[in-house]
């Protein structure tokens, strides 16, 4: 039997007339890494804020740990670890003090907190910066500290809102490594992201959100299989030749997508498609054949680029 | 472009930024003097003029002249501290500026030119208000503006130099708390220095605001006697303040160069 830590039915969030989250349903099971994928403004953060009980639900029903967010917010929050989109570390405190005070906010005893700080600093690879102020830390370090802070109360559910936005590739990989460890140790994670590779790497199951609605649901592999043909051919043209080529694409592949800088052809058989290109006299400057990714799924589902 | 032209370009950038923040300055430069003159000059003055002390002039005139120099100090010190810290640390606009033909020295000159313009405006407003209160006459009041501006700018350059040696903004409030406020209170602004204990008097004579206050009073209050002003000649006050301005200027340029072009 799988346990659902979060259950939402018809969950809705409105700001005046603007509908940020439009009657969505989802369940999050214990022990899984669940992703919310979508462009900025899709309603991911609003959904996170409702789960963390800092934003009142406008309509619909949701339970977190079987509790009601409207009346049992405190009890719910005492079992959550939250990593917000923007780091909001306390700049007046040191690295260790930032962890300490969050332990106190969770009503932990000093004797419980102190050994935990050592473990978490170790986990976040910040032991050497223990007594450093927060301000001079790098972006990756601040992010890891924020994650360590979210773990101080040994939460049952960890919520990460765009955990790697704005980090350099090295810092991202280090952070992913830390999140893998949490997964391996059985933690339940909710991750929002607009990075495809991040969702593919980290999430067992995900939903794609667009304009407040869930437009698809499944594992990364399922979504790719369901919504995108196996292969993608990316064509780049010399200045001015793209539009001409675009007129000759009818029936050449399962589907085509004309972007500002290139044309994408979705196909189950790249060789045949390339042959057809040649036969029709289309001569791109550059051709790239690759496997389809979540990004292609997204493009198909929402008809626009993901990273805006 | 000449150095002057480049300095003026930098001053221009300050004017553009100021268009968004002028409201706060209007409050401090216009409303505060009106309130202070009404409360201290007119209100407290009615007690002082009936009171035990012997000033020989109205307390309103005494306070108005003191405040003219003290406002110059406060505005000048303000100009030399927070905007400079913003330039190197918060807004970091100085860092951006030196990637253009404008260099550190011209940033300092530019700020000084802008400070000169703003200070002159603020002090003319103050003087006109003081005249409207009947504290002083218009002619001498306007004559006192240049030395008051000099006082303010001397503070601007010296405090700019000091700010450039500071790591963060916290020390700026300490500066105001332990230097500007005590100077404001104890440099003869609200009461003659002769009221201070004898051993503190020489310290008061050494402070820059004292020289600014003396200059303003000697120019605007021809009837003032030994209980209000000292016998120190005008040129001595001027030499003190000009020297302070130049030393501050020299140090600011050197320190800014070192700070943003390490």
């Amino acid at each position, binding site marked *: 039997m799988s346990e659902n*830590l979060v259950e939402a039915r018809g969950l809705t969030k409105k700001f005046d007339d603007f509908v940020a989250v439009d009657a969505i349903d989802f369940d999050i099971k214990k022990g899984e890494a669940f992703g919310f994928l979508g462009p900025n403004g899709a309603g991911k953060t609003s959904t996170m804020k409702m789960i963390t009980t800092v934003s009142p639900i406008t309509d619909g029903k949701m339970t977190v740990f079987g509790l009601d967010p409207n009346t049992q917010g405190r009890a719910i929050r005492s079992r959550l670890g939250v990593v917000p989109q923007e780091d909001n570390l306390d700049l007046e405190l040191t690295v260790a003090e930032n962890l300490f005070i*969050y332990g106190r906010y*969770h009503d932990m005893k000093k004797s419980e907190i102190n050994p935990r700080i050592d473990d978490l600093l170790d986990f976040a690879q910040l032991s050497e910066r223990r007594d450093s102020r927060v301000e001079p830390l790098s972006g990756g370090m601040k992010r890891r500290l924020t994650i360590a802070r979210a773990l101080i109360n040994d939460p049952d559910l960890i919520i990460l809102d765009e955990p790697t936005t704005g980090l350099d590739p090295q810092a991202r990989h280090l952070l992913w490594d830390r999140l893998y460890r949490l997964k391996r140790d059985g933690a339940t994670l909710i991750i929002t992201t607009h990075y495809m590779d991040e969702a593919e790497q980290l999430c067992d199951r995900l939903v794609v959100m667009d304009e407040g609605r869930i437009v698809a649901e499944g594992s990364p592999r399922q979504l790719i299989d369901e919504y995108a043909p196996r292969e993608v051919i990316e064509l780049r043209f010399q200045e001015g030749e793209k539009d001409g080529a675009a007129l000759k694409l009818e029936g050449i592949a399962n589907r085509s997508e004309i972007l500002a800088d290139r044309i994408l052809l979705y196909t189950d058989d790249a060789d045949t498609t390339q042959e057809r290109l040649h036969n029709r006299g289309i001569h791109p400057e550059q051709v790239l054949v690759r496997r389809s990714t979540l990004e292609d799924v997204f493009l198909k589902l929402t008809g626009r680029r993901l990273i805006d | 472009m000449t150095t002057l032209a480049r300095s003026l370009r930098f001053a221009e950038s300050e004017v553009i930024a100021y268009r968004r923040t002028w409201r706060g300055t209007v409050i401090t430069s216009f409303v505060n003097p009106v309130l202070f003159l009404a409360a*201290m000059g007119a209100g407290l003055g009615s007690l*002082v003029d009936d009171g035990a002390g012997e000033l020989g002039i109205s307390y309103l005139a005494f306070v108005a002249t003191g405040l003219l120099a003290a406002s110059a100090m406060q505005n000048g010190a303000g100009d030399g501290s927070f905007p400079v810290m913003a330039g190197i640390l918060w807004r970091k606009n100085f860092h951006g500026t030196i990637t253009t033909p404008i260099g550190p020295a011209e940033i300092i000159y530019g700020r000084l030119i802008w400070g000169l313009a703003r200070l002159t405006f603020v002090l003319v407003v103050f003087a006109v208000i003081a005249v409207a209160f009947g504290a002083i006459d218009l002619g001498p009041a306007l004559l006192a503006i240049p030395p008051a501006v000099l006082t303010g700018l001397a503070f601007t350059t010296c405090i700019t130099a000091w700010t450039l040696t500071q790591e963060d903004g916290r020390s700026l409030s300490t500066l105001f708390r332990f230097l500007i406020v005590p100077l404001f209170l104890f440099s003869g602004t609200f009461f003659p220095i002769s009221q201070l204990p004898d051993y503190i008097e020489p310290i008061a004579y050494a402070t820059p605001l004292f020289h600014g206050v003396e200059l303003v009073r000697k120019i605007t209050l021809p009837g003032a006697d030994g209980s209000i002003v000292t016998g120190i000649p005008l040129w001595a006050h001027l030499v003190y303040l000009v020297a302070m301005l130049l030393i501050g200027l020299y140090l600011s340029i050197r320190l800014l160069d070192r700070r943003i072009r390490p």
Partner: protein
Amino acid sequence: MSVEAPSRLTPIGRVTPFRAQRIWEKNFIAYRRLWKVVFSGFFEPVFYLFAVGIGVGALVGDVPGPGGALVPYAAFVAPAMMAASAMNGAVIETTFNIFFKLKFQKVYEGVLTTPMQPSDIAIGEIGWALLRGVLYSTAFVVVMFAMGMTRSWLAFLAIPAATLVGFAFGAVGMAATTYMRSWQDFDLVTLVTMPLFLFSGTFYPLDVYPPFIQNVAKISPLYHGTELLRGFTLGIVDWSMLGHTGFLLVMGLVGAAVANRRLDGMLRK
């Protein structure tokens, strides 16, 4: 089906209803390093006391205190300095400092993802401002005794009275902060506190004004604070002080209610 997962550290039973003191703990940790700033805050009112009380006092001589008896100017002005500094301290803490944390550091957004709630923050921060105020007031009263500006033991009642002044202004300051959009709006704070400082019977008895202006000045909360403190430090107590106390108490409670409601709306959107 949904199952309640057992929590290892914070079972619901341990979620205490009131935890504003956690904010004090946080501030205490932060201020351990900033003790110099706290310490230096004590000097400004003392500087004013020396300059106005002693320097200007020599020019003024004696003035009529509450009830009309003549008192030395320094003894007259000292409690007013104390009240004004209680006002300023509370206002700066609950406006500039809170605004910075609210809008720029977004510290509270993080705090609210823990069992803390907006009311804990409002009560905690106003309470902290008061705690600091008590420190300054106590030091100030000691200075007044040392300098002979008060002889009455009632002067120690000025400490809770100054705390009440801090509460009234801190609560209203916090409420005002929730309406602030940018730093530009803080000019308005100065625009309010400066006239209060100058025209609340701080430097001279209100009767130097014409009757109409006297009545306007009596609306000033700082006037009520000043009168209350002056009564205690001069050892002249009468029934009017109950009125002053009531005025400040109502102001503080209304401010705190507004601050709490607004903060909740701002932080829990």
